[in-house]
C-alpha cells in the first residue's frame, strides 16, 4: 500500500511564470500568474487507527462512548462531549449502510475535482453506527442522476484498489446494483464491480425528412454560433480554451471548433476530435446554444451523450456562452 507515485500537485495544475496586461478604460493593469502553496507532513494523530484500518485492513472503525453508548463513525473524537467527556472505545461497524438524507450531485466541480464530476456526496449511517459519514457516491450504471440515490437508499462501501490512508480511499454505490455476494463481502474493491462503460449510442438510419430537418437545424446552429463569435462576453467565456468537437445527429454530423476566444461551426467534422457529442435530434444542441434550456441538463437527462465526462467543462462553457449572448441583449 501507499505505492502510488504521484506528485502532490499534478503538473497540469501548475501554470508557467508569466504576466499580462489588461487595459480598462485606457489604463493598463498588470496581472501576474501567482500561487500560494504550502507542503505538509501532516499527522493523522488520533485518527491514525481509523485511516490505517481503511488502508491496510479494509475495515471501517468508529468509536463508542463508554457512558451513553453513542457510536460515531468516523471516530472524530476520543471523549464524548455529551457525557462530560467520558472516554470512547474503538468499534468496528458494517460496510453497508443507509443514506441519512438525499445527497446532492455535483456537476460543476472545483478545479481539483473536475475529473470526478458528476459525483454525489452524502451522509451514510453504516449499520451499527449512530452518526453519518460523508461519502462520495457513484452509480455503476453511468452518470449519476437525481433519483438513483435518495434518503433511505441502502448503499455499500467500496474500497479503491490503491489506497493511501484517506477518506478518498472509499466510496459508496447503491447496494441494489450489486450481487448479494458483493454486498456481503467486507473490503469489496472497485475492481470487483462491473462498471457500465460509456458506449457511444447508435443512431438510427436517417430518412430523407431527417436529413432535410438536419440541414435546417445546422443553418440555425451556424447562425447562433456566429452570433456568439461576434459577442465579446461570449468570446471571453472561451478565452484560452481549445476543443475540436464532433457532433453526430440522426440527420448528419458536423464539427464545432473552439479556438481561444473564437468558435465556429464546420460542415465537416474533425477527424480526430477532442470529444464526441451524440444527440438523435440536432435541435437538442441547438436549443441549448440558443438559451432555450441548458446543454448540461440534456447530458444529465441523456438526451445528449458526450464521450468524456471531463468535457462537462466544455459543455459548461457552451451554456455560459448562450447565457452571455442572452445577457448582452438585455443591457
Amino acid at each position, binding site marked *: 500500500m501507499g505505492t502510488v507515485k504521484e506528485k502532490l500537485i499534478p503538473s*497540469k495544475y*501548475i*501554470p508557467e511564470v508569466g504576466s499580462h496586461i*489588461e487595459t*480598462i478604460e485606457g489604463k493598463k*493593469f498588470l*496581472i501576474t*500568474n*501567482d500561487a*500560494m502553496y504550502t507542503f505538509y507532513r501532516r499527522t*493523522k494523530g488520533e*485518527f491514525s487507527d481509523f485511516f490505517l484500518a481503511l488502508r491496510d485492513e479494509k475495515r471501517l472503525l468508529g468509536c463508542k462512548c463508554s457512558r451513553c453508548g*453513542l457510536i*460515531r463513525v*468516523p471516530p*472524530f473524537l476520543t471523549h464524548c462531549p*455529551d457525557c462530560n467527556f467520558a472516554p470512547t472505545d474503538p468499534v468496528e461497524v458494517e460496510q453497508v449502510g443507509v443514506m*441519512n*438524507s*438525499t*445527497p*446532492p*450531485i*455535483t*456537476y*460543476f*466541480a*472545483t*478545479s*481539483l*475535482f*473536475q475529473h470526478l464530476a458528476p459525483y454525489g*456526496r*452524502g*451522509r451514510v449511517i453504516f449499520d451499527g453506527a*449512530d*452518526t*453519518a*459519514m*460523508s*461519502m462520495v457516491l457513484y452509480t455503476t450504471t453511468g452518470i449519476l442522476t*437525481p433519483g438513483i440515490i*435518495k*434518503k433511505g437508499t441502502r448503499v455499500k462501501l467500496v474500497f479503491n484498489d490503491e489506497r493511501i490512508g*484517506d*477518506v*478518498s480511499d472509499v466510496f459508496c454505490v447503491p447496494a441494489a446494483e450489486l450481487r448479494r455476494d458483493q454486498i456481503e463481502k467486507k473490503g469489496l474493491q472497485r475492481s470487483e464491480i462491473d462498471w457500465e462503460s460509456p458506449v457511444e449510442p447508435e443512431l438510427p438510419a436517417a430518412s430523407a425528412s431527417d436529413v432535410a430537418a438536419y440541414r435546417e437545424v445546422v443553418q440555425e446552429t451556424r447562425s447562433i454560433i456566429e452570433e456568439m463569435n461576434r459577442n465579446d462576453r461570449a468570446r471571453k*467565456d472561451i478565452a484560452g*480554451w481549445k476543443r475540436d468537437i464532433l457532433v453526430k445527429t440522426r440527420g448528419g454530423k458536423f464539427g464545432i471548433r473552439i479556438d481561444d476566444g473564437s468558435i465556429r461551426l464546420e460542415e465537416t467534422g474533425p477527424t480526430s476530435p477532442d470529444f464526441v457529442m451524440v444527440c438523435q435530434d440536432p435541435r437538442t444542441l441547438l436549443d441549448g446554444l440558443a*438559451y*432555450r434550456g*441548458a446543454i448540461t*441538463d440534456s447530458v*444529465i437527462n441523456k438526451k445528449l451523450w458526450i464521450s468524456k465526462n471531463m468535457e462537462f467543462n466544455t459543455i*459548461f*462553457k457552451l*451554456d455560459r456562452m448562450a*447565457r452571455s449572448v442572452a*445577457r448582452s441583449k*438585455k443591457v
Partner: protein
Amino acid sequence: MSKRVGIVGAGVTPFKGTWREKTYYELAQMATREAVKDARIPIGDVDAVFYGIYNDIFERAAIPEHALHGLLGMQNKFGTRITTGGATGAYTMSAAHAYLAAGRFKTALVLGVEKATDCFDFSSMSATPEVIKSIGWSGDSFFEQSIGWSASDSYAEVVLAYMDEHPGDLKPEITARISAQLSEHVLTNEYAQRQFDQVTPEEVLNSRLVVYPFRELEICVYSEGAAALIMAEEETAKAISKNSGQPVVWVTGVGEANEHSFAGKNQKDMSRIMSDYHASHRAYAMAGIEDPAKTVEIVELHDAFVHQLEISMAEFGLVPLGRADSLIEDGLMTPGGKYVVNPCGGLVYCGHAVGASNIMSAWSARNELIKRGLKTALVHGTGSTIAQYTACMILENA
C-alpha cells in the same frame, strides 16, 4: 447595564465580478471613505475597527488586515479580524456591537472586504473552479476536503434533507419566481454586480444545474468589493446623527448560533437550519420581539441559494416550516406583500463578496428603513459547512 448601539454611517463599493483596477487595500479604503463621509465624521473620531475578511487564500495573505490598519488611519488603535465563513460580516457586526455595548469604545468601524476572483484555474482557463476550490479548503480537512466538499454541495445537502421532510415545498417554479423577483429588486441597487440582469422564471428553470438541486440562476455570484459601517454607542450616535442629519438606526437585537458539523443522532438535524432558528430567536428576545411575523418588515437575508432563503425565512418564524413556498403563493414577499425581502437584490444579484456581504445587507437594510419609513429589519448571515453558522441582527428605525 449595556449601552444602546446604533448605525450612524454606511458605505459600499460597487460589487463586481472582478476588480482588475483595485486591490483589496483600495477597496477597503473606498468603503471606509464612503462610511465616514456618510456619518460626517473624520476617521480620527473612530476608536476601533472590526475587520470582516473570510478567506486568507482569496486575499493571498495570512493576517490580510494588517496592512489595512494604517491605510485606514487606524494606527495605534484597536483592530481585530473576524472570520466565520459566509457569516463573517454578520459576526463582525455582532463583535463590534458587543464592544460598543460594553462601553469599551464610543465608535467603531465595521469593515468587510473580499477579493475572490484573483483566484484562477489554469486548467479550465476560468476563475470560478479555483474560487470554489479555495472555499473548498473550508471543509473538514480529515473527512471531507479530499472527497469534493464544496460550499454548494454542503448547502444542497441541507436543502435536500429539508425536501425529504417537506416534499411539497421548495417547488422549482417557486424558487424560479423568487430568483426572478430578486432580479427585479436589484434594479435600484446601483452598486450591484448584476443590476441589469433581470431574468424570467422560465430562464431560471432553463439555467443549467450546477449542483443538484441548484440551478445557476438560483445561486449567489462571487463578487469583489467592500462594505463599511460606522457604529456608535447611544450618546455618541445621537451626537453624530444630529450633525449628519440622518437618523440613528438602532441595533436592538443580536443573536448567534453554530451547530454541529457532523450529522446523525445527537448531531445536526440535516433537515433544519437550527443556527438560523436559534440566532434569529435570540435576536428577537434581545429586541423584545414576541411575534416576529407581526414585527419584522424588512429582511436582508444571506441568500447563498434561493432554496436556503426559503428555509431561512421559515427558521426565522416568518413562514411555517414546510410552507416556505407561501412566500410567493400567498404573496408574502411579492411586491406589496407583508415582507420586503432582500431589496438590494440579495447575494444572488447584488453579489457575494464574502466578508463584505452581510455588511452590505446591513447597509441596505438601514437605507431601506429610512427611505421607506419602516421600523424593523432583520439582517442575517449564514456560513460554514451545512449552514452551520448564523448571526442575526435586528435593526430599528426609532
